[in-house]
């Protein structure tokens, strides 16, 4: 169980860093609430609740993007990544630890964002909340992976949304579907399938992103 211990240590490092420096999470929170206010004025009065639900998903994806874009920046800037690659642990543990930390941030942001959404717009069905949780898993697995790719390039922040958004389209489709239709079962199944497939792919190929 050294693998689990490595992953735990890496995730704890990120959470501790966040507790001490505390820049990503407040930024995500302020961003998501500001987006809701923008959406309120972007939706003409008389727009259906469905439109607001759709925009909730846009807000969530962009909020995640804000955090994920910075996920590996400290590692690159301080040269930590070289140390982690040399450390006697499986390279995929670096990805998994970071993904877990990002998941904690994203869920923490949503614990505030979803009630605020309910307050500003309308109540969400339970399936939407399950959909958000399942989509979070996919967003964090794929987003962390792509974030590690983006920091290895010269373009960095510029590249992150370009790499991430096409991959996030299926998640948005599944999430919106789960939030708006009456029988959300197969959308939730689809989200779970997405999570499983991409988690496996990320886990298997992360080594090649950090090592030369």
């Amino acid at each position: 169980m050294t693998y689990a211990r490595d992953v735990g240590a890496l995730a704890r490092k990120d959470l501790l860093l966040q507790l001490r420096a505390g820049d990503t999470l407040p930024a995500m929170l302020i961003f998501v609430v500001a987006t809701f206010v923008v959406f309120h004025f972007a939706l003409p009065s008389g727009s259906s609740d469905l439109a607001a639900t759709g925009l909730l998903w846009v807000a969530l994806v962009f909020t995640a993007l804000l955090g994920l874009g910075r996920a590996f920046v400290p590692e690159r800037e301080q040269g930590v990544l070289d140390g982690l690659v040399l450390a006697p642990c499986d390279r995929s543990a670096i990805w998994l630890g970071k993904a877990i930390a990002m998941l904690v941030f994203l869920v923490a942001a949503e614990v505030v964002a979803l009630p605020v959404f309910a307050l500003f717009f309308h109540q969400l069905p339970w399936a939407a909340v399950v959909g958000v949780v399942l989509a979070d898993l996919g967003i964090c697995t794929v987003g962390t992976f792509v974030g590690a790719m983006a920091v290895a390039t010269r373009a960095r922040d510029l590249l992150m949304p370009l790499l991430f958004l096409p991959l996030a389209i299926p998640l948005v489709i599944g999430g919106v579907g789960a939030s708006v239709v009456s029988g959300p079962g197969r959308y939730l199944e689809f989200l779970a399938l997405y999570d499983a497939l991409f988690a496996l792919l990320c886990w298997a190929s992360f080594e090649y992103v950090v090592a030369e």
Partner: protein
Amino acid sequence: MSRRSASGDLPQSLEVGRTYRIPLPALAAFSAVLVTVAAVLVFFVAPNDADQGFSQRIFYFHVSIALTAYACFAAGAWKALVHLWKRDPRADLESYVAVHQGVIFGSLVLMTGSIWAKISWGHWWLWSENQLVLFLVLFLFYAAYFMLRYSVDPGPQRANLSAVYALFGVVLIPVSFLAIRLAQHFIHPIVFTRHGPSFGGWILVTYCVAQVAMLVLAYTLYRVELAGKRLDARLRELKEVLA
């Protein structure tokens, strides 16, 4: 990242290259003949569609180009896997060239699909056309592939990142296809039903010839681009040696 050997001899990569059984000029001539035959069959031999008339003939190009684009993306992912797995030094460039051809054919799918949609349904773009939407997603995905590749310096890191991203593509294709199918239920409840044509006789022959022609054309273009890129790399390395 210099690949020069210590003794100052010619760089190792000069030896790198694949010998193909079919020479390029013969392949080019063959694909020119095939494409001509396909065009003749499509425009003069295949029967008019009872429902859509002459304009339905774009189907032969649209569908065969779409399948060719998938084949290119699959080839790119396969070469990416070979690169990661066997560390074959030729596979990186081959993967890139295959993906590049896939994007070219993918753009053609978007264009031919758009023309067909305009003539059949009066709109240049239809969100209810699953194939078109899927190709738009793939186009965006692979456009980012080029951005990724060209913002990393040439070397093992670039080869690895490109390869991993190309592998993501083949997982994204079925997942997106499934997602777009699912999206139909809440975005467009009315699905256009094209009345099933009897797929036989000249229609089948024409389609098969068009399909083979497009595949051979794509392979020819792949070989041409690969030859060009290899020449480029050789020239650069020779300059380095002489400098």
